[in-house]
């Protein structure tokens, strides 16, 4: 009997697809010939819904896009609206936003390493990473009452001030994280099985990565030093001293290393922001009803998943004419086919995991 190529369906219900994603795989024995993602199983009509809400009402819905890093979505949208409306955000608010955004990046990457390791089979790492992440969620809960869909960044600044007791609790959490990170690294970095499943898998070159529009850690793992916090700084990021980790081979293992190193850099940034927190208001004075004169703006930030952008078009009313979201996961997922070809089909899980996608952001 001759073994021929066949099609395999993965999802939309699958424990490792990071949400309701359907993948159609064409395989020849165990080698992947092509991957076609089928989207839309979580398409909730966000962009349409936003057109019937006020600018302020849109903010809590942005939490539900990349729900693992909700504050980043808030920040991306609020910065775009502020640019369009000409709202000046006080410096204290900008620093508070940096603290929140970097803590969110930390939490997001910790969740990622947990899911990634769990997909490959290292379940203990999931428990370790989530335990560490819980400390960060405690901070969010204390700050504004929510753990996951935080809505802590609002148009004009942050929802409330970051007082000294909370700042010292944040510093205490930052002490705990590196310890947990060391545990994770001790389990995975030089682990033979981990390396067999990640080194050399899912490679993409720097040129291909840029052509596919990849952003975030998958791009930086291919050696491309593109980080919006450095290239087009926003929210006073240029006040802080931090490195942008880069990989060399563009494989799954490098993406893993890049994200773990980004956690360390985030800790560095939060410490500096807390140290240098200036006096002032946590939020600009906002009108009761925010109406924005006709115009259009496109603003990007470096979210944990990649470059997140919002195009906001206003028409003079208190509701946006159109909000278009540039989703980093949506664009990164396009490169999955390229990365998977030639690899074994059991590597598809690892490669998909290394892209760090969130279906809420992909499907909107």
């Amino acid at each position, binding site marked *: 009997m001759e073994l021929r190529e066949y099609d395999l369906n993965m999802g939309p219900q699958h424990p490792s697809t990071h949400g309701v994603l359907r993948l159609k795989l064409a395989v020849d024995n165990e080698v992947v010939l092509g991957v076609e993602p089928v989207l839309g199983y979580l398409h909730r009509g966000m962009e349409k819904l936003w057109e019937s809400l006020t600018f302020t009402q849109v903010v809590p819905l942005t939490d539900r896009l990349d729900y693992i890093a909700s504050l980043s979505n808030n920040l991306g949208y609020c910065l775009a609206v502020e640019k369009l409306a000409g709202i000046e955000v006080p410096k204290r608010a900008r620093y508070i936003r940096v603290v929140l955004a970097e803590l969110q990046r930390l939490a997001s990457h910790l969740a990622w390493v947990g899911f990634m390791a769990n997909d490959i089979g290292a379940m203990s790492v999931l428990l370790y990473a989530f335990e560490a992440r819980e400390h960060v969620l405690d901070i969010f809960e204390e700050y504004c009452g929510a753990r996951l869909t935080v809505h802590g960044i609002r148009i004009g600044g942050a929802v409330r001030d970051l007082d000294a007791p909370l700042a010292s609790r944040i510093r205490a959490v930052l002490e705990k994280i590196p310890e947990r990170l060391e545990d994770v690294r001790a389990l995975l970095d030089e682990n033979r099985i981990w390396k067999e499943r990640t080194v050399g898998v899912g490679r993409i070159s720097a040129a291909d990565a840029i052509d596919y529009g990849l952003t975030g850690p998958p791009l930086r793992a291919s050696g491309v030093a593109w980080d919006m916090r450095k290239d087009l700084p926003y929210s006073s990021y240029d006040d802080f001293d931090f490195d942008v980790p880069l990989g060399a081979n563009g494989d799954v293992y490098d993406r893993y290393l890049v994200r773990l190193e980004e956690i360390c850099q985030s800790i560095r940034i939060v410490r500096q922001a807390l140290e240098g927190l200036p006096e002032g208001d946590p939020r600009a004075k906002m009108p009761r009803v925010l109406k924005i004169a006709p115009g259009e703006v*496109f603003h990007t930030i470096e979210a944990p998943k990649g470059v997140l952008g919002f195009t906001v078009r206003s028409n003079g009313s208190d509701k946006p004419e159109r909000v278009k979201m540039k989703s980093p996961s949506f664009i990164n997922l*396009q490169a999955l086919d390229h990365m998977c070809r030639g690899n074994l089909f059991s590597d598809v899980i690892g490669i998909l995991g290394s892209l760090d996608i969130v279906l809420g952001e992909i499907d909107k």
Partner: protein
Amino acid sequence: MPEDRADRPELRKILAALAGRLGGAVLAGVVDGGELSVRLAKDGLAPALRFLKEEAGFNALEDIAAFDNLDAAGGGGPRFTVVYRLYRFPGALRTRVAVDVGEGERLASAVPLYRSADWAEREAFDMFGIRFEGHPDLRRIYMPDDFEGHPLRKDFPLAGRTGGA
């Protein structure tokens, strides 16, 4: 806060070169701080994108955003506007290319130049019904294949047409 982008004089040179190359197809062009914004006639899209990528060095396509002009003040113009956001890396230069397209008209696909345009154009087709000439596989990306209508059009109701779910 609106970051005041430093002025980037090279964008003015790029605009001049683009206008020189495309002539009347460039309907408007302005450089504002670190961003170049051009409005093109439909036929100018493909040559403009080619010029911007291959000669002006805009190696990344960040986003394709489509807009429905049905409600826009002083209606009567073309139904849709499609905006391309290009980025040059390294250097952090941005270009905005806007093209108007009417109901039933087609735009040249950007996929031959930028592979990241693939799904973005499918999204514009799914949500608005705009067709792109030369796209390798233009079909819906979010809605099921048998769905009728294009949800992001202004005349499509938020709750849909199936009588609620």
